[in-house]
């Protein structure tokens, strides 16, 4: 029982981290231009999107 008390919160926490990472990526517009992103990957100049 004791190990469950540790493992369940850990599992949920990791899941929540993944969930919030996804929501963040959605919010920061990383899904706005999927076609463009796959092409930009191949560009040599390392310009960051402003």
């Amino acid at each position, binding site marked *: *029982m004791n190990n*469950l008390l540790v493992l*369940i919160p850990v*599992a*949920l926490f990791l*899941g*929540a981290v*993944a*969930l919030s990472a*996804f*929501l963040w990526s*959605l919010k920061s517009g990383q899904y*706005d*231009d*999927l*076609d*463009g992103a796959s*092409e*930009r990957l*191949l*560009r040599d100049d390392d310009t960051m*999107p*402003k």
Partner: protein
Amino acid sequence: MSCCAPGTGGILLGAPSKEEILLASRSIGDARFQTFLSVTGVHCGACIVTIEKTLSGVAGVEEARVNLSTKRVSIRWDERSDPGEIFTALARIGYPASLMDLDVDQPDPVLSELIRALAISGFAAGNIMLLSVSVWAGAEAATRDLFHWVSALIAIPALVFAGRIFFRSAWSALRHGRMNMDVPISLGVSLAFGMSVYETATHGEHAYFDASATLLFFLLVGRTLDHVMREKARTAVKGLVRLSARGANVRRPDKTLAFVPVSEILPDMIMVLAAGERVPVDSIVVSGVSEIDTSLATGESLPVTVAAGHKLVAGTMNLNGALEIKATALAEESFLAEMVRMMEAAESGRTGYRRIADRASALYSPMVHLTALLTFVGWLWVGGDVHASLTIAIAVLIITCPCALGLAVPIVQVMAAQRLFSHGIMLKDGAALERLAEVDTVLFDKTGTLTLGRPTVSNLSEISDEARAIAAAIAAFSRHPVSQAIFAAAPDGNLIQLDTPPLEHPGLGLETKIGKHTYRLGRASWAVSNGDIGSAYTSLSRDGSLLAQFKTRDQVRPGAAAAVLYLKHNDKAVRILSGDAQGPVAEVARACGISDYSHQLLPGEKMSAIEAYASAGHAVLMIGDGLNDMPAFSAAHVSMATATAADIGRNAADFVLLHQSLDALPVAHQIALKSARLIRENFALAIGYNMLAVPVAVLGYVTPLVAAIAMSLSSIIVVANSMRLLEPKRAAKATGDDARAVLSSSLAR
């Protein structure tokens, strides 16, 4: 760089004025503006680099970012600079751009809500399922209670956040006294949740948290797919070319010019219309000579020469000379607004088509609720235990939750849309696919639909490369359709660059000097000085003597005859409805093998012709392009626009054909038939599943484990069945031949 073809874009002139750009821009402070441009020529990584590099070199541009998916460029620029430079720079590198309205680039709030709900319900479903597995495996009572409590904790936010999409829709349906699929969903999910909380609090053995979370997740998948598909098509067809001017340069009483938005233009105002501008409101020419492209209004592909006294229709484009015009109507009383009104009238009169899913839910929901109620009453009567009866009744609701049903239609439509898209057909609305399968009469417009709608040079072999190159260099500066045909017919290799733009003589042609020679491209009687050669063809002359003649012709669209043949073989009535004169219509009808045609129809007459078909019980497919087909689109059972169609046409039509060939028409019809069959199969599967599962549930044998397996299995089967619509990978490569393959196989039958 091979996929980009810089320089093929066409015309080398025409940037909107700064006032017009400002009207379509958003101020972002510090005298800076953000503007969205539609650049349809972008299709690869190299295009992104070229455009972003070029634009960052333009004075005043702070940042330019290309969105490849939507083919748009977002530009931040400084107010003090000249934004027109952006357009010329883009045109110079071969990517003609057009200004977009501000509202088109707003993020889609519905989609982001759906995706967030999907993520949260997915998270909840996964984690609860994980806990449930150990409960099913036979955890001891204390552990089971703990797991149930943790599940409840995870399920609450999922239910509130992801479930409200269904609750909202169910509530609004109930409030208006209607039923939809969301009613049984909401009821099932919330009852299951409520009962599970009660069970958990009373240390019960079974809790349905996993079922409610998984249900939400599966249903949201269906809903999101449905939304994404519709939205993708909607944005793709939006804002390519604007028909209406944003405003016009109005001559004030003190003789100064001011740019006035179109909504503020009043009758009797005098406006100056430069070449390349659209007529803002219905008006009359005061002075000047020019040619007007009226193809939007009449479907006629050749421009009309106008002079003082001619009436102009809003939305038509001034091709070459500058005109002074006087407004005769307000914007809302002009031709464009009139067309929109006609469309709306036709839309409201259209016999309401109900989507298959809606028809199914109208039957399904009452049946589900009745079954659950009867189960409750039945068990109460037999056993008399309220708690046990309620548990079983709720289990019935959960097991009948239209999970597979909710996926049955959207998944087929998404697959069909994807398949259609690979053949260059854009599907606007999934329901249109259902309607296309029912069509029995096909009506074509002529110009731009059965024909390409723009002239092409037909006697290339008779003209020397040199003459073609010179003519193309001159023609590049004109918007006249014939000039564009000559420009498109330029020989490969180095283009001649003119130092100064040629002089355009409206109604006559273009004149320029290259070296010592004077070249004229235009009407034969004007270009050739030594005697009238009596030719109707566009001529190129050097110092007054004839160099070459360009014969142009509006060609029949490739695949048109084959498409008509296919339709006839499938027992569809085929007819042409054209606004053009009898001669050309008859010629095209003969070329395409259509015996039945009507000519010189006004937009309203096309519409009433379709309404006559509809009231005789026919389902009409209307295929057209111009603005004059819009009312007909709205009246037809289902409508299709060709790629050359004006913006507003693409918006009004259910399908947009992106490729030139009409081969797409048989393909679309075949796919529609196949998806109609698959949707019926999916419904049969979902109903079959219910017939198996409901008796089990009614008898009280459904545990959470059974519910989870049954629901997942039925969803997977439905999805797998829908996947059959996708063509195998091997065949997908040969998409070009596919149209003909479909055609010949259907003819062989």
